[in-house]
Structure formats: structure tokens, C-alpha cells
């Protein structure tokens, strides 16, 4: 009885795996077939030089890698700002001050209910000239304000989810509101919200491609240029998709490691 169940489960796995492979191979086949039907001529051999070149033993980054560098810079600066803006907004929404709650509310409603693309244009054409910042920082600001509004909801849910008894215990011990957040509430909340905060970072990496519209030469912008010059549309965009994928998967893996390490049992 047990043996047959075991074999049944095992068979199920084999079924799963073959179905998966079938879908994958099928998808790939359709893709190649589609390209062929259009008379598409695959030229993967032309791609490496847009990534990098070796000239007399010296490594020279191609346009895609240069774009990647700008994407990374955009992302990490925006990410830090996103997390700060998100935290501050969440605390404002939870504060007793009517003013703070009001400001947070208006900010959230505006950023979450308008398209990011519009916000990027607004930041570049309206805000940047006023603040006298360059296009890179206009992009950073637009991205971090947009993602920050989502991050704030994540923080808020994490903070609210911490057991009420924790607030009461730290209140009775005489901790100030700041000390309570700093030592008791946030360390517990952040451990809980690490997974959604990571997906926020993943969205940020992907959304960073949108700032190409204000001519920031990040990876997507570079890819666009190359594609329009060379017509290597599929090759170039598959390449940068793979790079985005590698970035986001690496990030998720790192966070998964930390999450495992600092898990709290409550």
C-alpha cells in the first residue's frame, strides 16, 4: 500500500517534470518558428561586442555593460531612498499628528494613482528645473517616490502586525516612542516584511528601465539604441532580459539567505 503510494507520488513528479519540459521546449520552438516565419535571421554572434570587447588584452565595456552600470547606480540610490521614504511615510501615517497623517495621505494617493511614466515626465520637466537637478537625479527621485509609496504600505502592515503586547511592555518599561520603534517594533517588523520589501526592490530594478524616456542611458536605453541601429531586436532584448533576470534572482537569493538567518520565532 505504502509502496504503491510512494510510486504514485514519484510518477506524479515525473509527469510534472515532463510537462514542464514539454512547455519549455514547445515555447522555445514556437518562438524560433515565429521568428523564422518572419524571415528573422538570428545573429547571436554579433551580440558579445555590445557587451564587451577585449582590445590588446584590455577589457573594454560595451554599451550594454555601461548601461548596466547606470542601471545599478540608479537602482541602489533609489532603493535606499525608497526604503527611507517608505519608513518615514509609514511612521507619519501611524503618528498622532493630523498634519503628518494628512501629508502622508496626499502623497500616497497621488503617487499610487498616477502612472509612473507620467511621474517621471513631471519630475524631469517640472521639478528638475526648479530644484536644479540633472536628469539622473530626476529619475532617481521619480523612482524612489513611486516605489516609496508602496514600500510605506509594506512597512505599515509590518508595524501593525507586531503584537500589541510588545507596545505595552515597552511602554510600561518607560521606553520613549523613538526607542520603542528603534529597539522593539522595527526589528521585529522588518524581519517579517523582508520578503515583500525584496519584491519592491525587484520592481524597482525593472521599473528603472522606464527612465529611459528622459534619455538616461541605462541598460534599456542602450538596448533601444543598438536595436534601432542594428535590427538585432530579439537578440538584444533577450540579452538584457537575461541580465535583469540575473540581477533580480541574485537579489532574492541574498535576501532569502538573510531571512533564514535572522528568523524570529514569536
Amino acid at each position, binding site marked *: 500500500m505504502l509502496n504503491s503510494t510512494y510510486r504514485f507520488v514519484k510518477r506524479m513528479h515525473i509527469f510534472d517534470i515532463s510537462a514542464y519540459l514539454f512547455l519549455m521546449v514547445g515555447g522555445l520552438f514556437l518562438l524560433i518558428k515565429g521568428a523564422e516565419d518572419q524571415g528573422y535571421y538570428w545573429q547571436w554572434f554579433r551580440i558579445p561586442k555590445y557587451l564587451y570587447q577585449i582590445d590588446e588584452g584590455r577589457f573594454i565595456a560595451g554599451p550594454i555593460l555601461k548601461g548596466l552600470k547606470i542601471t545599478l547606480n540608479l537602482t541602489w540610490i533609489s532603493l535606499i531612498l525608497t526604503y527611507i521614504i517608505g519608513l518615514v511615510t509609514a511612521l507619519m501615517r501611524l503618528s498622532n499628528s493630523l498634519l503628518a497623517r494628512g501629508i502622508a495621505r496626499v502623497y500616497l494617493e497621488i503617487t499610487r494613482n498616477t502612472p509612473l511614466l507620467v511621474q517621471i515626465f513631471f519630475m524631469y520637466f517640472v521639478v528638475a528645473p526648479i530644484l536644479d537637478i540633472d536628469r539622473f537625479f530626476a529619475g532617481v527621485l521619480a523612482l524612489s517616490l513611486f516605489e516609496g509609496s508602496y514600500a510605506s504600505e509594506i512597512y505599515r502592515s509590518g508595524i501593525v502586525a507586531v*503584537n500589541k*503586547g*510588545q507596545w*505595552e*511592555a*515597552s*511602554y*510600561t*518599561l*518607560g*521606553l*520613549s516612542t523613538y*526607542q520603542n520603534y528603534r*529597539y*522593539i517594533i522595527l*526589528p*521585529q517588523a522588518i*524581519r517579517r516584511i523582508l520578503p515583500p520589501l525584496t519584491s519592491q526592490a525587484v520592481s524597482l530594478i525593472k521599473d528603472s528601465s522606464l527612465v529611459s524616456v528622459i534619455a538616461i542611458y541605462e541598460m534599456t536605453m542602450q538596448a533601444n539604441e543598438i536595436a534601432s541601429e542594428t535590427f538585432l531586436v530579439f537578440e538584444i532584448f533577450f540579452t538584457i532580459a537575461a541580465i535583469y533576470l540575473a540581477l533580480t534572482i541574485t537579489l532574492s537569493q541574498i535576501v532569502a539567505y538573510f531571512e533564514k538567518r535572522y528568523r*524570529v*520565532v*514569536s
Partner: protein
Amino acid sequence: MSAKEFGDYIINVDGIGKTFTNGVVALKDFSTNIRRSEVVVLIGPSGSGKSTFLRCLNGLEEIDTGTITIDGIPLDDNKKNRLEIRKEVGMVFQHFNLFPHLTVLRNITLAQMLVRKRTKNDAQDEAMQLLKKVGISDKVDAFPSQLSGGQQQRVAIARALAMKPKVMMFDEATSALDPEMIGEVLEVMKDLAIEGMTMVVVTHEMGFAREVSDWVIFMEDGMKVEEGTADHFFTEPKMDRTKLFLSQIL
């Protein structure tokens, strides 16, 4: 416990009332005075306002009417007064409320360092002494989740004591414990009483109330029904309601 010496009044509660936002009246014109070193036990059916009373005493709940004064400091809107009272009144909760992300040692040293401004060494010495007193000095580096309920509650008591409070409040401190662990926590509470700590205790442990308390208050519907010494209260209660409650619980 008749040989005990009491000091002056440390807690003055005058005519406090509390109605929750959902309309439930938790306390009605409740007054009581508690002397230094006195152990006062509050008993009564659930929903009678015992826990609310405790929570009002240190400002966890706002009172609507009346006044509360602790060691001469009025519990009012003044933040400084409030902080002073929070420091001087220790509280032990039904569900322990230890900080799950901190070790036992950190649980006890954190507030000492942040609020009492003690050095790390002083705070740790104090913590070690208290852990020895509550009988779990071998668990300093454990996390709360690794301890039994009884051990967690003893850590919580040590954490509150580390602030050197003038008053200790216990809000059904043994209600969430497995039966075999209730004794170890009551033992610690009894020791505290013998040392002369002023204690306000909400409990369903009638044995503890009888043996340790100096004064028993029986509450129902947010009001005091009857009060008296433990002897009087358990042997010759006057009110019918008290008799009924005791007959149900003993």
C-alpha cells in the same frame, strides 16, 4: 502576614471612571488607596474591570474621570509625570510580552540602559542577580521562544524588577500558564511580597490571594462590591454577590 509594617499611601485613586469607545463601561467611580509594602489582590468575574483598573494605573488606558496619583505624582497629560510613573510602576502581563528578538539578558538590560541610563556592565550585573533570584540564571543567552511559559513569566518579572519600580502590578500573571508552572511563578511573587514590594495583583489564584494578600477587593461591573483583609474576605464575606462568587470559584 499581620506582622507586616505598612508605610504611607503610595497610590491614591479617586473616583475614576472609564468607558471604552464601544460603549462598554469598564470602571465606575472607583476609588482606593494603597500603602507602601501592601499587597492588594483584585478579584471578580471576567469583565468586572480588574485589568482595566491596572492598566489605568500606569496610563496604558486613559481614564475619563477622576484622578490617579502615584508616589505624589499625578497621572495627567504632562509627559514627564507620565514617564516618571511608567518608570516607577512595573507590570507583568498575562502573555509575558517578552521581546522575542532579544535574548533573555537583553530583555532585562535594554530598558535599564535606555531609560535608567545604567552602563552595560551595571545592567548586566543587575540582570544576573535578578535571574538568579527568579531561578533561571542558566538561561541568559536563550531566546524567549526557547523557554517554557513559567520561565518566560519569571524573565518578565525580572525585566520589570530591573527597573527598580516602587510598585509592581501583575495582570493575571499565571492565567496563561500550564498548571504545573503556576507554582514557580507564584513562588517568585510571594518572595517579592515578603521583601516588602508594593503589589497590585489581578489573579484567579485564590490560594495566593488568601495566603499573601493584605487586602482583597472584589469587583463587579466596574465597581467595588466588597473589600477587606484576606481573613475577613474569605471566611466571612458580607455581600451575597461575594459569597456566590466565592462558592463558584473555591
